[in-house]
């Protein structure tokens, strides 16, 4: 499909232009944040919620950077997603590629075309990470319930919210828990009306 390769090429071009930072420092900084959260909240479910909230805050801001850079590069496709399929391609091929240099795949479209999955083979956030094995005798919280990469869910939700798509994101498969790849399930809840309202409509 032509839009698929377009998105992939666009992603490559955007990635090449971004100034780079060390991925290990990135992973270690995220690890430091998660460690702090686990120390403060103790309950892994609450930590997951916090990560999602933090991701939401990042998503809201990174979508501006993404759209402006995609526009400057003359890639109108970012602003012209005709269907959820196009949006999915742009998020995975351009978004993930541009910010993380990661190759993400899209698939798993539901029959009503309202949900899809993003597959991530190598997760830059979880370099060097291993979840402790479930140990009932310790009596502490089961950290295996921790969704280490829940940040991605928040980022996708925040970013798509800014372009009027209300979505729900979940981590379905996680390499940290032994699965062969990471899968994020995105479900479209509703398409919001333009948030600014009538006051801001141009005359």
């Amino acid at each position, binding site marked *: 499909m032509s839009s698929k390769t377009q998105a992939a090429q666009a992603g490559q071009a955007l990635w090449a232009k971004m100034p780079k930072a*060390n*991925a290990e420092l990135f992973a270690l*900084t995220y690890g430091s944040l998660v460690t702090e959260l686990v120390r403060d909240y103790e309950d892994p479910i609450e930590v997951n919620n916090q990560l999602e909230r933090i991701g939401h805050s990042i998503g809201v801001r990174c979508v501006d950077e993404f759209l402006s850079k995609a526009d400057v590069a003359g890639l109108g496709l970012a602003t012209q997603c005709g269907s959820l399929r196009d949006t999915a391609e742009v998020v995975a091929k351009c978004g993930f590629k541009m*910010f993380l240099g990661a190759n993400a795949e899209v698939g798993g479209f539901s029959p009503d075309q309202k949900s899809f999955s993003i597959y991530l083979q190598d997760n830059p956030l979880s370099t060097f990470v291993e979840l402790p094995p479930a140990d009932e005798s310790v009596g502490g919280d089961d950290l295996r319930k921790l969704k280490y990469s829940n940040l991605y869910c928040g980022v996708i939700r925040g970013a798509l919210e800014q372009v009027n798509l209300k979505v729900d994101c979940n981590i379905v498969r996680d390499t940290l828990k032994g699965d*062969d790849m990471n899968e994020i399930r995105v479900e479209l809840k509703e398409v919001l009306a333009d948030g600014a309202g009538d006051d801001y409509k141009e005359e």
Partner: protein
Amino acid sequence: MSRSSSTNILDRPLGRSGGRSSDGSVVSLSAFAYIYSELVQYHQGRAASISELERRLESAGYGVGLKVLEMTAYRAKETKRETRLMSILHFVSSSVWKSLFGKAADSLERSIDHTDEFMIIDYEPIASTFVSIPPDLGQLSADAYVSGIIAGVLDGAGFSARVTAHSVNVEEGEYTKQGANAVPGLPPRKDKAVFLVKFSPEVLSRDAALER
């Protein structure tokens, strides 16, 4: 990269030295900046004062520093540990800086007034590239995290030190070349980051004893 997730994490290969040449070991600067900004915001929400915020950021960086020391020392394939003060400082300002930020630190200086103080200078610290400090937080440096990393590296190597980050104005003409970390489209930075390293007295006396 090993595909089987059943391999023990400690058995996986660490990757080539340098770590910037292959695509798998870089992310965009923006991704790092977003994560770092969230880290700072999180700590800011829980700190009561500027110095507490700085302390929190430094301790966040400390653990990272310990790990960075291990990785960088392993990859540099040095057969001996650094035991001398000057050599560990050179190691930090060149190898560690290169592996974390892609270039060696811009300069390493010794303080004239205090024999136990050294300064590592970076004209384009990536932690504070996208940060602007409001006037009511005047003394805060966003690079407190990096000074925590340096403190972790030095402590892990056996040289306990207190490291603080300061933002110092760049003089006219002091620095004209655009470094590797300069972000295209942003105006050149008006201030450089100076990391003040103050070693503990026992480190200095040990170094003096080794001199003899």
